Structure formats: C-alpha cells, structure tokens
C-alpha cells in the first residue's frame, strides 16, 4: 500500500500524544505529560461530576435526572448488599466511583465525535489504566483482608472441607488463582474495549476502501460492512456498560472474600 492511498490504521486511535507542549512536564523525574488520554480522563471526570451533581437536588419527589442518579447509586448499593452483605455499604463510594468512571470512559470513547473533528480517546483501552484500577481494587482487597482477619486471611486459600493431604496442592493453586485476579480484572476491560474499537475501525476501513474501489465493491463489501458496523456500535454500547459492571461486580466479589472469607 502506498502512502497516497487513503488508509485506515486501526491502531492509530490508541496512540497517546502530549497536548499543548506538555511533553516535558516532569514530577520527581517521571514524565507527566498532559496527553489526550489525560484529557479524556478529565472530560470523564467533569461529565461524571456534572451528572452526579445534577442528582443532588435532594427533592422528596425526584425529577428525571435525580431519578437516574439514584438508580445508579441504588444499583451499586444493591449489588454490594447482595454480594458482601451489610458490611458492603461502606464500599459504595469506591465501587460507585469505579463503575461510573469506567462506564463514562467507555461511553465517551464511543461517542461519534469524530464527525465534528474531535477524536475521542478511550483510555480504558490501555492496560496501563485498567491495570492501575485493578491494582487499586486488589490492594483494597488485600488491606481489608489482612486488616480484618490478620494472617487468618490465608485460610481463604484453603476451601473448607479440604482433606489434610490435599492442602499442599490446593493452597498454591488457590494462591495463584487469587494472585491472577488483578491481571484478569485489568486485561478483561482493556481487551474488550480495544477489540471493539479495532473491530469498528477495521469495518470502517472496509467501508471506505470498498467504496473507493468502485460501485461493485461498494455494494458487495461497503454496504454490508456498514450495516454490520451499525449493529456492532449498538453491541459496543452494551459492552461498555457490561464491562464496567463486570469490573465493579468482580471487585465487590473480591471484597466479599476479604470481608467474609468463606
């Protein structure tokens, strides 16, 4: 492919670029350039604050906005109560922040803002970001577990009723499955978001290249790809919600392990 041909690079959308000459900002020797990724984190934060602040009217009879904010808090509250029990309520602020931050990041990244020349950046498609969130969740699980149960927390790795000779085998398996949790947590979100965006980009390249190749290709490749793309867009919106939910749900399940052991 020559450079003059219009070419869609499905990976280009994940490129991080420093904004406004901040490339050399440093803090304690580390680069902290304000990148497009950081910009979209800021946008997600602002939109989320505006959304939740709109639900703070504290009216006895809620309006639509207040209703929707209360739906989300109630949703997280119910999830924690179902998975962790009464002790789960104190994690509502964290799980709510996590869920809403990921949800807003995913959905903002899907916004068709490219039409008006703004290119959304989905920072949840970077495993640096999802990994940090997973590590925060995992750290909370560890801190709560050892805080509440001390060294007894290690009994989490021996399912109750395990015969004594099996313990040396079961313990490492359980320990490894426990230690893999932050990776699976972070990778799941990163992979789901990246795969969806790559798929959309590849399909769009089919549409563009097919249409450029002539009417026959446009009818054979371009139009079916476009229809498929519309369907996948709807699916991606669903995935954006589901992945945020899965992240929050798994975090609350892990917290349940730490709170209640088995």
């Amino acid at each position, binding site marked *: 492919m020559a450079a003059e041909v219009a070419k869609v690079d499905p*990976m*280009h959308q*994940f*490129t*991080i670029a*420093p904004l406004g000459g901040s490339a050399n*900002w440093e*803090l304690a020797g*580390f*680069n*902290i*350039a*304000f*990148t497009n*990724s*950081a910009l979209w*984190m*800021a946008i*997600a*934060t602002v939109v*989320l*604050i505006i959304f*939740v*602040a709109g*639900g*703070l009217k*504290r*009216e*006895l009879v*809620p309006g639509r906005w*207040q209703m929707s*904010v*209360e739906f989300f*808090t*109630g949703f997280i*509250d119910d999830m924690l109560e179902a998975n962790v029990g009464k002790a789960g309520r104190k994690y*509502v*602020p*964290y799980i*709510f*922040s996590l869920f*809403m*931050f990921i949800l807003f990041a995913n959905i903002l990244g899907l916004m068709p803002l490219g039409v008006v020349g703004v290119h959304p950046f989905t*920072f949840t*498609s*970077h*495993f*640096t*970001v999802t990994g*940090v*969130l997973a590590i*925060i969740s995992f750290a909370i699980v560890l801190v709560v577990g050892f805080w509440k149960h001390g060294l007894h927390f290690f009994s989490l790795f021996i399912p109750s009723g395990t015969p004594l000779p099996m313990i040396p085998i079961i313990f490492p398996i359980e320990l490894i499955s426990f230690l893999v949790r932050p990776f699976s947590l972070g990778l799941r979100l*990163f992979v789901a978001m*990246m795969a969806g965006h790559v798929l959309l980009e590849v399909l769009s390249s089919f549409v563009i290249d097919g249409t450029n190749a002539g009417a026959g290709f446009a009818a054979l490749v371009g139009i079916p790809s476009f229809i498929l793309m519309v369907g996948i867009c709807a699916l991606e919106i669903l995935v954006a919600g589901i992945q945020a939910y899965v992240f929050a749900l798994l975090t609350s399940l892990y917290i349940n392990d730490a709170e209640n052991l088995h």
Partner: protein
Amino acid sequence: MPQIAQLAETYSSQVFWLLVFFGIVFVFVGRGMVPKVMDTVAQRDQQIASDLAAATAARAKADEEEEAWRVRENENRAAAQAIVAEAKADAAASNEKTLSAAQERLDAKLAQAEQDIAAARTSALAEVETVAAEAAQDIVQRLAGVSVTAATAKSAVKKAMIHG
C-alpha cells in the same frame, strides 16, 4: 500496538493522571455526593414507610370508631325498642282497664234493666190478677147471680193462672 509501543514513555503520565482524576472522582463524587444521594433515598423510603404506617393507623382508628359507633347504635336501638314495647304494654293495660270499666258499667245497667223488667212484669202480673179477679167476680155475679168475695175470686184466678 501503541499500548505496548508507547508504554515506556507514557506509563508514568498515564498512571499519574489516572490517579489524579480517579482520585478527584472518588473524593468529590464517591465520598462527597454519593452519600448525600443515598441519604435522600433513605429519607424518602423512611418518609414513605412512616406515611404508610400513619395511613394504616388512621384506618385502624376509623375501623375502631365505626365499631364503637355500631355498638352505640345497637344499644340505642335496643333502648328505643324497649321504650316502644313499654309504651305498647302501657297502652294495652289502660285500654283493658277502660274496657273492663265500660263492661262493668254495661253489666250494671243490664242488671238494673233486668230488675226493672222483672218488677214491671210482677206488677203487671199482679194487676192482671186483680183485673182477672174483678172480671171473674163480675162475670160470676152476672152469670150466676152469686156474689163472690174478692178473696175467693182472687184465689180462683190464682189457681187458674197456675194451671194455665
């Protein structure tokens, strides 16, 4: 794949800005606003529960009052029926008295009348006897030329009247 290709140069800024913005979200939204929102929801639930409880209590009270009213009403009705029954009994008694008094008066009148009639008949009979005796005396004198005394004639008339 920029996620790996750019990892070395961008990881620190990614981590830093993520911690900054997620920290802002956690502090302002998670800790600041969410408890207030949940508080509002809890307040509303409480309000609804207390309103429902008040409504239930009010209904129970209304039922109670209706029951009391019904009891009172039944008592009143029983009392009214008792009064009616008493009035009826009184009226019947006074009627009977009046009737019996009237009956007595009538009986007395009847007895008086019968007595009068009997007296009248006796006197009439006596008169008839006298008249018959005189007639007999007269007839005897005219037919037989015998003059009988009044007493004889009288006893003869009496005899004849008894024998019919």
